[in-house]
């Protein structure tokens, strides 16, 4: 407060009043700006601590969105592989059934030829499945941009682990390489099937040995299929976690950046009232001086 002998003049009063009115108008403007933009941090100096949190959260959110895309892509790759492998196992089972039929000594050469031809067809179908594509890329071919196998069943791919980042710093392999899946060149499933067809046609005694090879190959594929399933499950878990993470991040960002509307509106009402009161009293106080009372 001013001391007792402090002189007050009209000019100083007017200055003080305008300063105070200006100040309360500024605060009103600030609140209005916050409410209309729904942001309580309009620039770093509004809250440096909030700003660092907001920047970090925004960066994390950006990363989170990208990881969601990566996860979708990984799911698609693995799901394609899973589908293909399911068909592969079906086809192999069919080939195995046919082979068992062919081992029946009652069958004549024409019947065996027919079975062998069907096995050849199955082999072609399997090569087709081995060349399964997702987004125009052979999923079993590693890092080459050609098909995984040519029509003769030769592996054309370059085996490599294709990975996706599914969490910051965490990568998961999303592909299966043809040679790991169908066996190394020369010992692969397609050769086994060719040999099997030939054995059925010409040398039924060799069928058993080929059948063992076929079963071994089937085992590998089933193992891989289980692997794919496990990875898919992991990715689904990560997807859940990632979308939960996105919600948490958005909530945190909203807490840091957004205006608490009820509170802000309340505060604005209070400030408005204070401003109006200041205006009204100013109008009353500043008018009269002794001039008004002297005649």
């Amino acid at each position: 407060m001013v001391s007792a002998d402090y002189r007050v003049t009209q000019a100083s009063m007017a200055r003080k009043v305008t300063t105070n009115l200006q100040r309360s108008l500024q605060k009103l403007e600030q609140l209005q700006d916050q409410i209309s933009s729904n942001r309580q941090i309009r620039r770093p100096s509004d809250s440096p601590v909030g700003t660092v949190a907001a920047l970090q959260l925004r960066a994390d959110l950006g990363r989170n969105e990208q990881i969601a895309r990566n996860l979708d892509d990984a799911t698609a790759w693995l799901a394609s592989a899973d589908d293909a492998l399911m068909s592969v196992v079906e086809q192999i089972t069919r080939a195995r059934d046919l082979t068992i039929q062919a081992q029946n000594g009652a069958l004549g050469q024409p019947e065996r030829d027919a079975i062998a031809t069907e096995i050849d067809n199955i082999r072609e179908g399997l090569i087709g499945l081995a060349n399964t594509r997702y987004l125009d890329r052979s999923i079993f071919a590693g890092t080459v941009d050609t098909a995984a196998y040519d029509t003769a069943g030769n592996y054309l791919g370059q085996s490599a682990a294709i990975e996706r980042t599914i969490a910051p710093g965490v990568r998961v392999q999303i592909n299966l390489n043809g040679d790991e899946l169908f066996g190394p060149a020369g010992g692969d499933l397609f050769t086994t099937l060719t040999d099997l067809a030939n054995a059925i046609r010409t040398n039924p005694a060799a069928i058993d040995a080929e059948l063992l090879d076929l079963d071994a190959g089937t085992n590998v594929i089933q193992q891989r299929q289980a692997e794919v399933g496990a990875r898919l499950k992991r990715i689904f878990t990560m997807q859940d976690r990632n979308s939960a993470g996105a919600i948490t991040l958005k909530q945190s960002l909203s807490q840091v950046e957004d205006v608490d509307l009820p509170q802000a509106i309340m505060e604005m009402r209070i400030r408005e009232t204070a401003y109006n009161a200041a205006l009204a009293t100013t109008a009353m106080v500043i008018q009269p001086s002794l001039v008004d009372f002297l005649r």
Partner: protein
Amino acid sequence: MSDFAGLRIALSSLYAQRRAMEITGHNVSNANTEGYSRQRVDLQAIPGATGGLFATWDGGGQGVRVAQFVRYRDAFLEIRAALEHGAEAHLSQVRAALDQLEWLFDEPGDLGIQRGMSELWSGFDDVANRPGDNAARQQLLERAETLATTVNHAAKQVVSFRDTAIERLSATVAEVNTMSADVAQLNEAIKRSLNVGDNANDLLDQRDLLAERLATRIGATIHPGEDGAVNVFLNGTALVSENLAESLEVDTTGPSVAIRWANANFPATVTSGDAGGLLEVINVKLPGHLADLDTIALKLRDDVNALHSGVGGSLAAADRDQSAAGALQFEVALDGGAMALVSVAGADWSGAGGAAALQAALQAAVDGAIGAGNATVTVAGAAGQPLVVSLAPAVGSTLLTQAVAGNSGFATLLGTTAVGRDGIGGRRFFEATGALDLGVSSDITDASHIAAGRAAGGPLDGSLALDLAELATSTSGADALYRAYIVALGVDSQATQQRHDIQNETMTQVDNSRSALAGVNIDEEMVNMVQYQHAYDAAARFMTSVDEMLDTLINNTGIVGR
């Protein structure tokens, strides 16, 4: 005593009350004049003259006179006000500059540099997801360009803020020179006025107002001088001394902008006022921010390029014996020139001296291909450890490398080299000497030139892009630097705002103290007016009475019995 003394006394009162009334009117008229100090007449009774030896006068007073016109002004308050105004102006300039910077970056927001960097890293991930897709690569290039442009724009704006500040500094100094000359002239006028006994109060007000503006503009200090003059100093050197004014000029020739004395070409120390604030903005704040932006841009360039343009590879411990491999070959081109073959005869490098031997052989081969001094080969790895090979171009050069079809030399020796879809490695992603010229490197003229994979990885290898995308979460990368920078800007700006608010308050208090002393209160003036008017009325009445008394004496005396 004369019979007519009463008339003279009445007259003196009429004069004095009228002068007092005029001063009251003058005060009321200037109630809203900036820098005006209220005035008051000092009335003094005129004592009776000491009579002569035979005087019959009884020593009564002879009326009233105006002794002096008092100007309400406290010199010490003026000195303090000058200091506070200077400090306020300084902070106000710095605050405005930081304010501008904060709006420039628009953080936290959806259009700032942070967003640009996030998008860039996402772009790398998209390329990693689809290395063969030209659209993903094109999108990455667009994002890199956008980010670079945003950084360029910010840096350009900082430079333009500085240019504007320099212009304003020049204008301020020009204004200061005019005002100093005016203060010197007014000093002279006041001195002359006072010497002949005139009332110089209004000149004093004008002069003091100018002196205070000098304090606001350039942080000058005010010292009362002789004969009503004030001397104005700039950190101990006289800007105005009595009726002499020095002039200043802005020196923009050096890396730092300075204010100099025009006469002596000697640097003037300016640390306060608008000019002091502008100098801090021009020489400290803005260059500091530009340097910070440069650091961020160069960090971005280096982090990305280290992965994108690194030329090198490794030989596994088991593969160090290459004596059966024949010639290991790859091709190198310097600065966009033609590819030249580098061929090293395979040898057994498994021993302790293997690394040195391979290094010497490779260096010789590379020198032979592109000339000595253009690239440095380093090979490291003790016996039993993998051999790590790297190839670095001389500063400012680009080194492109390519495998030789059918020769595994490249794959084994330089297998981890990042390569574009065309199999050529060593391209830089960004180029920059600072934030102003950050841009996508001229090495990349086509989206296929973006290296998503490594030489040994096959055409659809995305492993390198995956590594690049992971820079997003680096705790020491450009993102982290930028966030730290924005927070530092926020803290600086916030602290300046608070200091400015406090200084503003202090200044207002001094101004209020001054106006409490010097300001015109209309009520007070009205009371004075009434008071002087009554005194005037009374004096006139008194004169009438004396007149009547004289009338009685002259016309009605000695007529008894007529």
